[in-house]
């Protein structure tokens, strides 16, 4: 008899996830109909290549992919603003990008996001093209202290209540009505139960819900278009294995709640509260990854790391504030059968000895400015290395520069498996011939 999911070991769960990816279904739950036997073979070969890389084994060759920022949009001759407002055109740009460059796996077109949705909710956390930045710029975060220094106890006691009644109304103008809502945990028994629902009768709360319905409909419209392209690309042999997204607890608090300066102040002025809050949101960050993997059916959970990079904080600060809860999230995701895909933005050279301390063969690390030879030496037996063709070279260099760089990577980081060739950071601008050189050269030279 087949083992139940809960009874499986992390190894068995990972195997089951890959088996699921190797037997893809269409939205109705039937076996996916590929457009050709070649497409089916390419799809399965790509999944197997990724599986081998994650498990630190040599495959038929080094897998290659491209995980861009706005590049597909600019490559299609569009402005980021157009991509955020015309979903069909955005989807077509991502499709063209995949079909032109033919990476082994692709990462979908959800990055630009639905512009109208952000307008409906009056999103204040970001400036986006036409709303605070030029139509040809991407969106950029507007850092601030959206959580005040004295609000840690609120966050620690009930993160969901804090988010709903305090944080969300601060970053979405249209969610102001949330500030009037009572905690759901007060809804207990007949006596007094109706009192909890009074806010829903008040115009500000009703307006907030109207905006939510409208925003939800817009998000659905957008994802239907983007999902459609993913489905089509799958039938053509290009799997998207991205299952969702979560963050290191330190970045969750430091990026959008307290802000960079705010969290730094807390490291000195109230370190115990900060540590308690990091602990409190750790299970939530794990749940966020596991939940989205369940919804999408894909096991790879993307985690962009920000404030733990070389030079940002000391080793001691990293080991005290950043790593323990990040490690707990990574382990929690692995325990739940997911594959954490961690983008170590900036350099992670000084952190390699520390990050070694995680289960072997269960994670992918996208390295940006980390020395790949050193990384292979120190963490090559633990995690799958991804990277790290520089954004600068993709934009300014020549195809020969790219080939030389890729050759070095394949010969060193790629040795014996456990390596994925790709860009090291999310890029918007590049010469098409350079992107093409990265993919084609790896397919040609990267055989094991």
């Amino acid at each position, binding site marked *: 008899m087949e083992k139940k999911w809960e009874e499986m070991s992390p190894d068995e769960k990972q195997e089951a996830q890959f088996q699921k990816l190797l037997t893809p279904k269409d939205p109705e739950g039937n076996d996916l109909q590929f457009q050709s036997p070649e497409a089916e073979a390419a799809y399965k070969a790509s999944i197997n290549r990724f599986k081998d890389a994650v498990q630190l084994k040599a495959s038929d060759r080094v897998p290659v992919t491209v995980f861009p920022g706005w590049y597909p949009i600019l490559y299609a001759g569009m402005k980021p603003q157009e991509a955020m407002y015309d979903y069909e055109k955005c989807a077509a740009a991502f499709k063209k990008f995949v079909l032109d460059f033919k990476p082994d796996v692709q990462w979908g077109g959800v990055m630009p996001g639905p512009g109208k949705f952000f307008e409906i909710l009056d999103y204040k956390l970001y400036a986006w093209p036409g709303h605070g930045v030029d139509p*040809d710029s991407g969106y*950029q975060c507007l850092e601030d202290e959206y959580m005040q220094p004295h609000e840690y106890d609120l966050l620690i006691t009930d993160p969901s209540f804090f988010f709903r009644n305090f944080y969300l109304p601060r970053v979405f103008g249209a969610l102001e009505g949330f500030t009037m809502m009572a905690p759901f945990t007060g809804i207990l028994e007949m006596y007094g139960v109706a009192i909890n629902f009074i806010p829903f009768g008040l115009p500000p709360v009703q307006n907030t819900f109207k905006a939510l319905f409208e925003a939800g409909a817009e998000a659905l419209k957008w994802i239907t278009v983007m999902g459609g392209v993913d489905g089509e690309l799958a039938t053509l042999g290009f799997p998207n294995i991205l299952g969702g997204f979560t963050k290191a607890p330190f970045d969750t608090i430091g990026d959008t709640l307290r802000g960079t300066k705010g969290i730094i102040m807390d490291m*000195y002025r109230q370190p115990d509260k900060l540590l308690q809050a990091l602990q409190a949101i750790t299970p939530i960050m794990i749940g966020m990854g596991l939940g989205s993997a369940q919804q999408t059916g894909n096991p790879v959970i993307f985690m962009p790391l920000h404030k733990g990079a070389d030079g940002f904080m000391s080793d001691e600060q990293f080991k005290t504030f950043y790593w323990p809860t990040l490690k707990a999230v990574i382990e929690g995701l692995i325990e739940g059968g997911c594959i954490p895909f961690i983008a170590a933005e900036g350099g992670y050279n000084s952190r390699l000895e520390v990050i070694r301390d995680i289960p072997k063969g269960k994670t992918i690390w996208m390295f940006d400015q980390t020395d790949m030879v050193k990384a292979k030496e120190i963490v090559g037996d633990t995690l799958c290395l991804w990277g790290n063709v*520089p954004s*600068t070279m993709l934009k300014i260099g020549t195809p020969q520069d790219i080939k030389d760089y890729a050759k070095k990577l394949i010969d060193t980081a790629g040795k014996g498996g456990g390596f994925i060739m790709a860009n090291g950071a999310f890029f*918007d*601008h590049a010469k098409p011939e350079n992107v093409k050189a990265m993919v084609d050269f790896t397919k040609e030279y990267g055989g094991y």
Partner: protein
Amino acid sequence: MSGELEKLLSDLKEPEALEFVDNALAEGVDPMALLDAAREGMNIVGQRFAAEDYFIPDLIFSGEILKRIVEKLEPHFTDKKGTKAERVGKVIIGTVKGDIHDIGKDLVVFMLDVSGFEVLDLGIDVPVEKFVDAIKESGSTIVGLSGFLTLAFDSMKNTVDAIKDAGLRDQVKIMIGGGQIDEEVKSFTGADAYGRDAVAAVKLAQGWIGG
């Protein structure tokens, strides 16, 4: 006595440093002497950052302590101009057109400031003309361009070109910096140098005009 304030500030002892300032002011110590001590403390912080004993959190926190010390001292200064220290040179800094990232730029501004430079911070998403105008108006001989996005490479190049077109290229040294900036971007933009971090920016500026 003021040696103690230098130590408290450079060791990032916030409550102790503030209490020291309160007590000193109550005892009638010259606020100017306290400000000098605080500046010396910041100098030590800068040196520790350059030596990689301190990192970004330490730097930013020290700036916050300094701000609170200055707030305490300010009401005691009769002549505001008296608080301005001698400056070794003038540097124009800004995040280039299309890019609104400011954390790296602010660190460079901070380090240049504690190292004795007068910094003209043009902010973020700075149009090329604004850099050109600032050079003309301030007579500054150093320009720092910051940017995080790949789009910034073009904006940096456009800014350097505009400075050239305005006939000002020979009057200024241009340094660039930001997450992805390297030698290749330096050549592409036509800047004179690039720096990996705020310490590198200070070294470049000192090399160009001494300080």
